[in-house]
């Protein structure tokens, strides 16, 4: 049995006398958090203050030697690890040991291994196993901050969020910690302060603080809020759902064949998707260009409820109508990556907008010469990579807008049904036609 733990639990130990003004105090080794060498004597750290020992540093060193938990942590500094509550990584090599009463002591790198072995851990950086969200929280320097950031005074904000030099606020550090603090309040049982709002509502909460810091000139920090929030969601540190943000994405999970996802890049194709859903009961979604992380989160949460085996291989198929060009491929990749973030990891993917599904005439006359297209997002490298993957159209750097195919919707419908044929669990036409019912309700309402 560990004598140090017993000493601590019983609050007893070997006697230690310290000087206290004109008199003495009689303590025991369990009262001490540690002691450091000072001109041959020892300064003893206790919860109630620091005292000079009557006996020498070397005497105290010998006194605590047999008691487990007393360790050398820096030159001339011994700590009673039985009174240490936590290890705080300062940077990749430096750590602070913090006592139960909140006193902090630096750990010298020379003693790192001894302390690590004492605690029986692989590293003092983080607990193993560590979750990925935890890893990203550490990477993004997200921490528990007691005081509400929105009500911190300017010196407090500088103390918490400034650079090492102390003269500049690191806005991204302030924003990620603000977002984390807000979600912690919600997790502790408070109502979301922006229920039914959007990301802009979060921005309006922190804007006055940035205004007080004179940080509203220049950079658009609304974008910082939005991008940092997306990053935190991507790393599963928090979710949009926790804030109860309003989400207006165009998607609907199918009633009969929800595992078949019909994805369109463009909003204008959503009505066509609705018709397909009415016929086949599949799930539909329009990414509206680059799909937003928030839409993906809400979509995935609803989807996972309807498709219980969503994590398995070959259970989900994404049949898509995207532009046949690097942009369309990038959007699809982002969508699939986002699904992966929210747990849908192994979808099969079938593209309908590929050269084989266009007529020769369309390919000849309706193609887009991608080399001549003025697109800042798609440079030569991306285009060449796409060419390597697809061979363009007959080896030319040409693409096809999916709208060319959509001019002949019965063809797209046929292509879709052929691609989905082996995936249907319930054969179309399905019984309920939700969108038609909604339309009928509206017609009746207008008539009324």
């Amino acid at each position, binding site marked *: 049995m560990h004598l140090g*733990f017993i000493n601590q639990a019983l609050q007893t130990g070997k006697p230690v006398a310290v000087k206290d003004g004109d008199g003495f105090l009689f303590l025991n080794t369990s009262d001490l958090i540690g002691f450091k060498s000072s001109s041959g004597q020892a300064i003893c750290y206790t919860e109630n203050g620091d005292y000079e020992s009557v006996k020498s540093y070397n005497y105290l060193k010998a006194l605590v030697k047999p008691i487990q938990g007393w360790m050398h942590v820096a030159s001339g500094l011994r700590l009673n690890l039985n009174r240490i509550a936590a*290890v705080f*990584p300062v940077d990749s090599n430096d750590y602070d040991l913090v006592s139960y009463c909140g006193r902090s002591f630096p750990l010298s790198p020379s003693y790192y291994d001894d302390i690590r072995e004492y605690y029986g851990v692989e590293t*003092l950086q983080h*607990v193993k196993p*560590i979750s990925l969200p935890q890893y990203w*929280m550490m990477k993004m320097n997200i921490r*528990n901050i007691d005081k509400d950031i929105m009500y911190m005074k300017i010196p407090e904000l500088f103390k918490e969020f400034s650079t090492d030099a102390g003269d500049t606020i690191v806005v991204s550090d302030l924003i990620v910690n603000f977002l984390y603090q807000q979600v912690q309040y919600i997790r502790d049982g408070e109502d979301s302060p922006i229920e039914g709002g959007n990301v802009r509502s979060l921005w309006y909460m922190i804007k006055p603080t940035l205004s007080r810091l004179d940080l509203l000139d220049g950079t658009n920090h609304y974008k910082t809020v939005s991008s940092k929030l997306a990053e935190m969601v991507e790393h599963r540190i928090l979710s949009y759902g926790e804030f109860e943000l309003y989400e207006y994405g165009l998607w609907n999970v199918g009633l009969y064949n929800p595992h078949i996802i019909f994805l369109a890049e463009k909003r204008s194709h959503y009505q066509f998707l609705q018709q397909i859903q009415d016929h086949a009961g599949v799930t539909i979604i329009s990414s509206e260009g680059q799909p937003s992380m928030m839409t993906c989160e809400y979509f995935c949460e609803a989807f996972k409820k309807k498709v219980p085996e969503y994590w398995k291989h070959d259970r989900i198929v994404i049949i898509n109508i995207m532009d046949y060009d690097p942009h369309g491929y990038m959007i699809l990749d982002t969508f699939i990556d986002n699904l992966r973030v929210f747990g849908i990891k192994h979808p099969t993917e079938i593209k309908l907008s590929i050269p084989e599904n266009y007529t020769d005439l369309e390919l000849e006359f309706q193609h887009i010469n991608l080399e001549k297209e003025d697109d800042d997002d798609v440079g030569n490298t991306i285009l060449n990579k796409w060419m390597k993957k697809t061979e363009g159209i007959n080896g030319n750097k040409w693409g096809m807008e999916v709208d060319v195919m959509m001019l002949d919707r019965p063809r797209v419908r046929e292509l879709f049904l052929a691609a989905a044929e082996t995936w249907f669990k319930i054969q179309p036409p399905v019984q309920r036609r939700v969108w038609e019912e909604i339309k009928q309700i509206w017609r009746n309402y207008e008539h009324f």
Partner: protein
Amino acid sequence: MPKKKDENIELLLSLLMRIVSPLKSIPVQTADAMYFIRPENIAFITTDEKRLAIYDLDGNSWTRYDTLSGMEKKLEKDPRFFHSHKSYCINTYAVKSLYKDTKGNSWRVTFHGDIESEATVSSSNIQEFKKMMELE
């Protein structure tokens, strides 16, 4: 006489065991630090999605990314811990009361200290638990 002495030492050790766990502290992670929880200060451990929530006797809840079975293996040399339910491992030395759950077949336990949360003992484990708590 020597037999009496051995018995006394055994008694002393068992009493000490009730005060202090023979195990090392359990590291848990917070946003910015690694904290060390003394096993004797744990009230119970339960699963919370893909992680463990460790409730201590001061009323704090700590997170550890581990499985309950993995954690129980680490604690197996400490007799105070008992697998009371598929999602609960409790510190029997800290149990204050036991009540039948009015809604089902399981039992609820409360703890000494500042902790308000309760743990569960399943009907399949209740006999063993009652034996441990000198109820049978």
